[in-house]
């Protein structure tokens, strides 16, 4: 069948069951948007205020639904505005297909208006980039891009179409193949052959070796990493932890991979990890890390990390093994499959003594009383007001750590946070994407005054699409996390971190046609939350907290994991 090139692009999106795309039009991508006009009943396009917002929204959509997110942008500045979003998705292994258009072939390489080498720019922050110069290759490249983004360790992919490739009079051969059946199409088959065409299966010898190591261990500790979340292996992980009867430490990216309220949970591990997690890590004799990459925020001091333990690393990406921390054993495979195979072979263990030593260290801090609003009160009020399956999107900094420490996440995709790249301004975009993908769930966006100012223009998107997202600004009038470091390490030189310059977030919300309220104590916070939950529109709560609140506990970067700077 002969179809227009742009039509083939839309049909390829439909092959992948894409029904929502985020983006922003412009000169070179006009042809694609013209075709989108014909497909408006099948593909919903969400127009954001800025390309960066679109990139985070597509990312948030992908993280919360487990599907591949799609984001459109034009050439030049449109494309470069995506880069922070692409890098964010890359660091947290989120599957997003970014589609940009570039100038025509005859203008390529001539420094033409709005021309940039985006495939070159995006190369180190994507799994793959494609520059499409021949319209006939569109279906192959689209299918391959989606396959690469979603399989193995997921991640972003960028496709850059030259404008002449998308010209409306360009006709190409095209046949609709649902994604479940496209594995035999040319480019995917070729890719598979190059990488050993067989059903990938973890090595049974490696599995059995770990089973033996577990049998010899008296003090095992599990780390639940982002791989458990991305691989949606939460059920298998829970069964594994319960069979092993071992404490479970959760990384920032692992939030939602293991129930936060489970009796075996020791909470977060690493720089702002709980006493229980960090002490357990130091004293365990077997550390089994699933889908985690031992980043410098977890393995603060790689040489002494879990120094008494045999370290076992389970990951889908072989290049993570021995990258940050040297291991004793590893298993390559998807978290789900590896844990299934392990669960089949494991008897029920009991590590009563070890648990009794570690788990009591995880004493939940009581929420402070008093008239002055504290972060603990804000979070406690949110947790008590919203349904337990509420999706939480955070920005980056103190409020992020408080949110992750406080909330008990129950399922993968419930916590959306930029753990790897630490992108300020990620939260609101991600919340928009999450709400688009999960219209039945309540979405709360926690942010700080510094982060919120970075992408608060997306309130326009929240208003236009009637998204009842609750934004809670932990407003301390400072870049809190940086201030905390300045306080502890830089002799209280508060260099350029005080944000004594507005805006008035309540008025800002109103300016965008939304509602907002400033709260200074717990009662006002609770009242505002009730109003936010019932108003049916976007709502901004400006929670006034003290500038000197700190994230506790804290271990300095590069220090031993139990050398707490703050308890």
């Amino acid at each position, binding site marked *: 069948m002969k179809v227009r090139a742009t039509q083939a692009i839309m049909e390829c999106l439909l092959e992948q069951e894409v029904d929502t795309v985020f983006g922003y039009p412009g000169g070179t991508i006009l042809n694609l948007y013209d075709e989108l006009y014909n497909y408006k009943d099948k593909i919903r396009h969400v127009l954001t205020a800025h390309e960066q917002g679109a990139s985070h929204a597509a990312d948030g959509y992908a993280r919360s639904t487990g599907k591949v997110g799609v984001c459109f942008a034009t050439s030049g500045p449109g494309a470069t505005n995506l880069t922070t979003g692409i890098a964010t998705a890359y660091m947290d292994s989120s599957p997003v297909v970014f589609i940009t258009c570039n100038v025509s072939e005859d203008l390529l390489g001539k420094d033409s208006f709005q021309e940039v080498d985006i495939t070159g720019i995006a190369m*180190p922050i994507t799994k793959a980039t494609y*520059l499409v110069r021949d319209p006939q290759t569109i279906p192959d490249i689209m299918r391959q891009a989606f396959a690469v983004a979603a*399989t*193995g360790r997921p991640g972003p992919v960028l496709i850059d179409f030259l404008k002449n490739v998308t010209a409306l009079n360009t006709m190409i051969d095209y046949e609709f193949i649902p994604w479940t059946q496209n*594995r035999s199409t040319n480019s995917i088959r070729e890719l598979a052959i190059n990488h*050993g065409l067989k059903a990938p299966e973890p090595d049974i010898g490696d599995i059995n070796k770990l089973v033996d190591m577990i049998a010899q261990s008296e003090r095992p500790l599990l780390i639940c990493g982002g791989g458990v979340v991305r691989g949606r292996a939460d059920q298998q992980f829970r069964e594994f932890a319960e069979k092993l009867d071992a404490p479970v430490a959760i990384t920032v990216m692992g939030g939602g991979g293991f129930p936060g309220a489970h009796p075996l949970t020791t909470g977060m591990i690493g720089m702002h990890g709980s006493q229980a997690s960090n002490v357990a890590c130091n004293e365990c004799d077997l550390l089994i890390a699933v889908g985690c990459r031992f980043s410098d925020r977890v393995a603060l001091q790689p040489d002494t990390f879990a120094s008494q333990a045999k370290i076992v690393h389970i990951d889908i990406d072989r*290049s993570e093994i021995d*990258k940050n921390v*040297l291991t004793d054993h590893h298993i390559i495979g998807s978290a789900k499959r590896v844990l299934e195979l392990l669960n089949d072979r494991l008897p029920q263990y009991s590590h009563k003594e070890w648990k009794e030593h570690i788990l009591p260290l995880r004493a939940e801090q009581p929420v402070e009383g008093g008239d002055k609003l504290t972060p603990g009160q804000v979070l406690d009020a949110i947790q008590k007001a919203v349904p337990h399956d509420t999706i939480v999107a955070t920005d980056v900094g103190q409020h992020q750590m408080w949110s992750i420490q406080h909330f008990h996440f129950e399922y993968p995709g419930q916590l959306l946070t930029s753990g790897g790249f630490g992108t300020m301004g990620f939260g609101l975009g991600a919340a928009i994407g999450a709400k688009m993908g999960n219209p039945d769930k309540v979405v709360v966006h926690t942010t700080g005054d510094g982060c919120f100012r970075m992408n608060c223009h997306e309130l326009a998107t929240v208003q236009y699409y009637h998204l009842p997202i609750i934004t809670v600004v932990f407003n301390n009038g400072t870049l809190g996390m940086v201030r905390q470091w300045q306080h502890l390490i830089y002799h209280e030189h508060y260099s350029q971190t005080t944000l004594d310059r507005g805006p008035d977030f309540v008025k800002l919300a109103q300016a965008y046609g939304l509602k907002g309220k400033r709260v200074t104590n717990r009662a006002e916070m609770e009242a505002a939350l009730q109003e936010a939950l019932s108003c049916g529109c976007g709502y901004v709560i400006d929670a006034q907290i003290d500038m000197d609140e700190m994230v506790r506990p804290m271990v300095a970067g590069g220090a031993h994991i139990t050398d707490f700077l703050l308890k």
Partner: protein
Amino acid sequence: MKKTFDTEKKLYTLSLLVQDIPGVLSQVARLFSRKGYNIESIVSGETSQPGVTRITIVILGDELMVNQIAAQCRKLIPVMVVKILDEETSIQREFAMIKVKAVDRNARDEVIQMANIFRANIIDVSRETLTVAIFGDKSKTTALIDLLDDFGILEMAKTGTLAIERGRSSIYDDNKLREEYNYGKNVL
């Protein structure tokens, strides 16, 4: 048992098989620069399989670093195989063309003699110059270049090191490590 690594810095040779697609060489080269590793030499050329290119890279580093860079290379989608070649079990060669000043008969005779000793070839002659082509391992080419320098080298074109394993084993051999990397890249 945790692994131990040789901490002595030396030259390592990496052989890569990559899909011959636009940008693949820059993708590989950029990996080295963004990880802060210096490429001593890089050679890229076709293989007996259509659509597959072989890249040979020599870098200076310690064992852990070389393992890291090999791991990062293997992770790239167009990269099919990466093998760290060992000096004892592989053959390494390079090729150079050297244009030497030789204005009088004496100089010309001497250069020709030198070339003969090294089993190099004279591939071009003019009234004032001789161009010598040499093929051999790094120590041999370096020694000849050093000697020819006395006559005055006008210009030189030299490849980086090419390498291939001795005996039956080849870069195509399957092994567990290769399978482990392919696991994460399999699109099925």
